[in-house]
């Protein structure tokens, strides 16, 4: 999807990100973590808050690696392949199979949507 480039220079005045925009919502994090715990398991608040930060670190980390590959190949848009490559490079090859399955499913659904849109427009 087309994306507007980020503003150059990165000035403090207009480009600062709000604190809450640097993290994923704690409610989503809490919900997903709970599913991974045993039935009577709990997570302490400190741990939960730290996990919230860890998750943002992960996003930045993989994105940066994917972006490096993209730039090396002189492209401007980070794509799915860059991401998959980054996962392997960074040692998260366990994620590769579920991600590929997810990507295949995503492409199917996108195709179905675009096909439906095409049919409707006829």
């Amino acid at each position, binding site marked *: 999807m087309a994306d507007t480039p980020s503003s150059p220079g990165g000035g403090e005045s207009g480009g600062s990100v709000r604190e809450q925009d640097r993290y994923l919502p704690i409610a989503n994090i809490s919900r997903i973590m709970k599913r991974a715990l045993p039935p009577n398991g709990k*997570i302490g608040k400190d741990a939960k808050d730290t996990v919230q930060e860890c998750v943002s670190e992960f996003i930045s980390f993989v*994105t940066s690696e994917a972006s490096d590959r993209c730039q090396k190949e002189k492209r401007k848009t*980070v794509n799915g392949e860059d991401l998959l490559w980054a996962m392997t490079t960074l040692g998260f090859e366990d994620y590769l199979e579920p991600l590929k399955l997810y990507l295949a499913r995503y492409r199917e659904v996108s195709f179905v949507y675009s096909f439906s849109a095409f049919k409707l427009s006829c």
Partner: protein
Amino acid sequence: MAEEEETIRPEFPITRVKKIMKVDKDINKINSEALHLVTYSTELFLRFLAEKSSVVAAEKKRKTVNLDHLRTAVKRHQPTREFLLDSLPLPSAQPVRVTKTVSDKKPPPVGTRRIDAFFSKGKAKVDSP
């Protein structure tokens, strides 16, 4: 159509994931596939952290996962350790046990005669009261 979408519905708000990615000013454009893959991989990572921390908590016979359990879980997985360990808050400091040592004796009040001065033969001056 709705059921197909269900299988790929992200667990996190995509717009927020994108904002986090764009905190890095070097990131220019990201296509939709990449955005969805980042979101899904983040979910996988979160589940991983939760599961492994939970295992550590169980080893220590605790029901509530705390920071130390999280730290141990991070340390045990090399790729995660490499990028995340330094970002974790420092381990909680051990409570400082303040014990009075002999050398911390307060000086005696002015004018006090030390009894050992009295007993040492001619070596110490005995202060006049």
